Every structure is written in structure tokens, then in C-alpha cells.
């Protein structure tokens, strides 16, 4: 009677077989199966290796008379995983330091802002590229989430991409279920929930972006900011990123309740100009707007040039 031991990433299986050859074969089989199981089950929360193995090991390996001797005791890897706790933990002062740092990351990102007008919403951002060799037409910082909701960010671009992807999927799931376009508040809430989950899950870090979501639905024009912590606020006008304090002061002075969409676009351009290093042009800013037609559009460089000319 030979016995052996298979160890694979903190999962151990102990077994006995009748002969050396069988022992070697079982060991190789188990290793293979555990490897597959580990990569397959990496994402799932409940792992039942025992069940999986019972299905996958060929029964020809074992003589029916000695089946009683086959004992497999498995210790599940998941529970002992090094990353089953949250990396975002409270400090003694009651703050979540990771989120503060995430906000710092946002604060050092390029300035973006949004203004809610009486008949629409405009969002805009700087588009400072690292070199003149970068093809600026390929960089799109303002994205659609649905035909009537757009979003812009300050912070880490790759994190933004992930959030846009998740939000688009959630919006489409809502549409598939109710055959109705998702209201802006609901989409913002679901996006914020995703961002909050990443502050309370194992092995992940908070998103390093703040979003400005602009939409027009049955409740009229709406502008929301979503932070890395998962909190969201509705704004009449707001800014984020490097130049946030100057931009917000400027907006506080310039904003009026009955502003129209075109006025709002002019104000947005002026606000961006306030803290802009260098020459502002249609190649280094991006503007998106949505009006009563409920269609979100990113302005073309030609249209931006027209507005810039009006502002001069």
C-alpha cells in the first residue's frame, strides 16, 4: 500500500493506492486536476474540490476492492488565500486612507468640469497629451454610457475605461429587462455601487477616478459627480482635477440658474481657460453636450473652434 501527498497552492490531498505505479498516476492526475480547478475556480466564492475531483478522476485507476482505501482530504485554498481581506482598512482617525489617496490621484489628474443648463448639460476636459507625436484623434476622454448619458473623468485613464465598460453593461441590462432607457440616477447609483464594492472587497484597490456623468431623461437635464469612495452628488456646476479650486470659484461667480446650453458651453470654455497652461485650441480640449433632443454628442474639433472663436 503506497500513500502519497499532492500539494498544489495550499490545497493538499492525501491518498493511498495499491501500488507504486498507481500512486504515481494518481498523483499526476490530481496535480493536473487541481491546477485546472484552481484556475477555473479562482473567481468563484464557493469551491468544492471534492465534488470536482470525484467527477474528474478516471475510475479505472482504482481497483474496486481498494476503493475504501482511497481517502482524499482536501483543504480548500480559497479560505486561506492571502487576499481574502480588504486592502482598504480604517485608520484610527476613522478615515479610509486608500480612498484619500485615490482622491489625491484624482486631484492630480487633468481638469474636467460640467455645467447643467436649463435645457441641457455640457461636460468638458483638458486633453493634454504627453507628446506632439500622439494622434489626438484617437484619444477620447469623453465617452457615451447610453445614447442619452455621457461621462468624463479626472484621474487614471485605465480605471475610467473599466468603469465605462461596467456601466455600459449595467445600462444595457436595465434596458433589456424593462425595455426602457435607464434613468440617469439609477445608472449613477449602480456605478457608485461598483466603486464602493472596490473599497470593501478582498485584494482590490479603489478606482483612481472621479466621474462627471451628464444625462437628459424624463426628469430633465442632470449632472452627477461620482467619487472613488462610491459617493455621488448632483451638481448644478462642478469641476475636478488639478485646477479644481480656481475652476469652482470661477463657476460659482459665473453660474446662473436660467443659463442656456450655448451659454453653458461658453462658460465651460472660459473656466477651462482659467487654469490652462499654454494655448487653448480644439486639439487640446474635449467637449460633450446633451440637449432637449436627449442625444449626447461629443463636439467635433471644428465645432469647438467655432465656440472658441465666439469666446475670444
Amino acid at each position, binding site marked *: 500500500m503506497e500513500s502519497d501527498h499532492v500539494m498544489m497552492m495550499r490545497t493538499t490531498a492525501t491518498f493511498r493506492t495499491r501500488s507504486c505505479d498507481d500512486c504515481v498516476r494518481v498523483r499526476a492526475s490530481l496535480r493536473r486536476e487541481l491546477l485546472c480547478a484552481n484556475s477555473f475556480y479562482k473567481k468563484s466564492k464557493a469551491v468544492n474540490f471534492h465534488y470536482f475531483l470525484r467527477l474528474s478522476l478516471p475510475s479505472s485507476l482504482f481497483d474496486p476492492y481498494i476503493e475504501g482505501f482511497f481517502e482524499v482530504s482536501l483543504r480548500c485554498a480559497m479560505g486561506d488565500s492571502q487576499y481574502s481581506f480588504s486592502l482598504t482598512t480604517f485608520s484610527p482617525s476613522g478615515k479610509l486612507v486608500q480612498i484619500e489617496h485615490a482622491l489625491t490621484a484624482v486631484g492630480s489628474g487633468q481638469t474636467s468640469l460640467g455645467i447643467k443648463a436649463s435645457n441641457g448639460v455640457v461636460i468638458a476636459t483638458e486633453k493634454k497629451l504627453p507628446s506632439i507625436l500622439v494622434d489626438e484623434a484617437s484619444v477620447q476622454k469623453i465617452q457615451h454610457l447610453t445614447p442619452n448619458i455621457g461621462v468624463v473623468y479626472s484621474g487614471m485613464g485605465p480605471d475610467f475605461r473599466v468603469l465605462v465598460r461596467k456601466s455600459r453593461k449595467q445600462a444595457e441590462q436595465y434596458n*433589456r*429587462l*424593462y*425595455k*426602457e432607457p435607464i*434613468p440617469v*440616477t*439609477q445608472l449613477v*447609483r449602480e456605478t457608485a455601487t461598483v466603486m464602493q464594492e472596490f473599497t470593501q472587497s478582498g485584494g482590490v484597490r479603489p478606482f483612481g477616478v472621479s466621474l462627471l456623468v451628464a444625462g437628459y431623461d424624463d426628469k430633465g437635464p442632470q449632472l452627477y459627480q461620482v467619487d472613488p469612495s462610491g459617493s455621488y452628488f448632483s451638481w448644478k456646476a462642478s469641476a475636478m482635477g488639478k485646477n479644481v479650486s480656481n475652476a469652482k470659484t470661477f463657476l460659482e461667480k459665473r453660474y446662473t440658474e436660467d443659463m442656456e446650453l450655448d451659454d453653458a458651453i461658453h462658460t465651460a470654455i472660459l473656466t477651462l481657460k482659467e487654469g490652462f497652461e499654454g494655448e487653448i485650441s480644439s486639439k487640446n480640449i474635449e467637449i460633450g453636450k446633451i440637449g432637449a433632443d436627449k442625444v449626447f454628442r461629443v463636439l467635433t474639433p471644428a465645432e469647438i473652434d467655432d465656440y472658441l472663436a465666439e469666446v475670444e
Partner: protein
Amino acid sequence: LQIFEYNGSAVVAMVGKNCFAIASDRRLGVQLQTIATDFQRISKIHDRVFIALSGLATDVQTLYQRLVFRHKLYQLREERDMKPETFASLVSAILYEKRFGPYLCQPVIAGLGEDDKPFICTMDSIGAKELAKDFVVSGTASESLYGACEAMYKPDMEAEELFETISQALLSSVDRDCLSGWGGHVYVVTPTEIKERILKGRMD
């Protein structure tokens, strides 16, 4: 054993002028034996949307509970009532979730949409929606109901006339069906009020 004919049912909904009516029979049977004469098939989701379910009684009750649950959460989250079209899409999705082990009931949904425009629809047990402009029927008495409604219906009826029409159509159809009957339950819904009436027909 025909499972859709186990308990017996008859359900009909009709469109009127800025109003709708939804009616059902009241019999609950176990094949040939009648065990209740006051079974509730029509349920209010909110003041402007009603759903009536025909088919297996246990699924009628369970599905109704699930739908009320979903609607309550929707109301809390979105701070508004569901439109009837939205509700119909939700019911269709919930039924299709159980495509290979379905709820054995056919719903009839009726509601007042935007601008008080009446909306009716029916679907089969796996969620195939069927919209109609005039009337929809469901249940063991559906064939007789189709005939009766087709003959008696006319467009743009006011609430009182609609009530008369739907009641006559229901009572005459269930008389031709042994598994449904024992009276009728009619709701006539206008933008301002909901009128619930019990009909006394042939008690058999």
C-alpha cells in the same frame, strides 16, 4: 392530466376611452371538483396597473407575490410607479427566466400609461408578449371569450358601457366552459377611480 386545465380560469381585459376593464371568473377547482368560489385572480400592482393570471393556481399566487416584490423595490429605488409597458417587459423577462421549467400561467396585463392611454397585453407561459388594441383573453374559456369579445366589442366605449360589455362577454363565455364560472370579478379603471364589482352568474 392537462396542467393548464387543472384549476380552471377565465380572464379578459378590454380597452375603452381613456379607461380599461379587466375581469375574471371566481372558480377554483381541482379538475372536476369545485373547492372555492371566491378565488382572487386579478391583482393590483399599483393604482394604474393590474395583472390577472390564469392557469395553475399555485403559480398564479407565487408569480403575483414575486411581481409585487419586484415592483415595490422598483418604487423605492426609482421613486415612481412602473409604467404598464415596463411592467409587461418585466413579467416577460421573469417568465423567460424559467424557460425550461416554466410558471404554468398566462398573464393578462392592463394599465393606464402616459396621458391616460390604456394599455393591455397578454403573454404565454414563457413570456411571449402579445399587445392588442381592443381586448385580450386567457384561460380555459379563452376560445369562447375570443368569440364573445369579437362580437360584442366596439372601440372607444365609456366606463359604464365597457363594464356592461366585458361582463356580458365573460358570463356568456364561462357558461360554455365547465371549468370556469361561479360568478365574475370586474375592475373598471379610469384616471380618477377604480370600480370593483362582483357579478352573479350561473353558479355552476
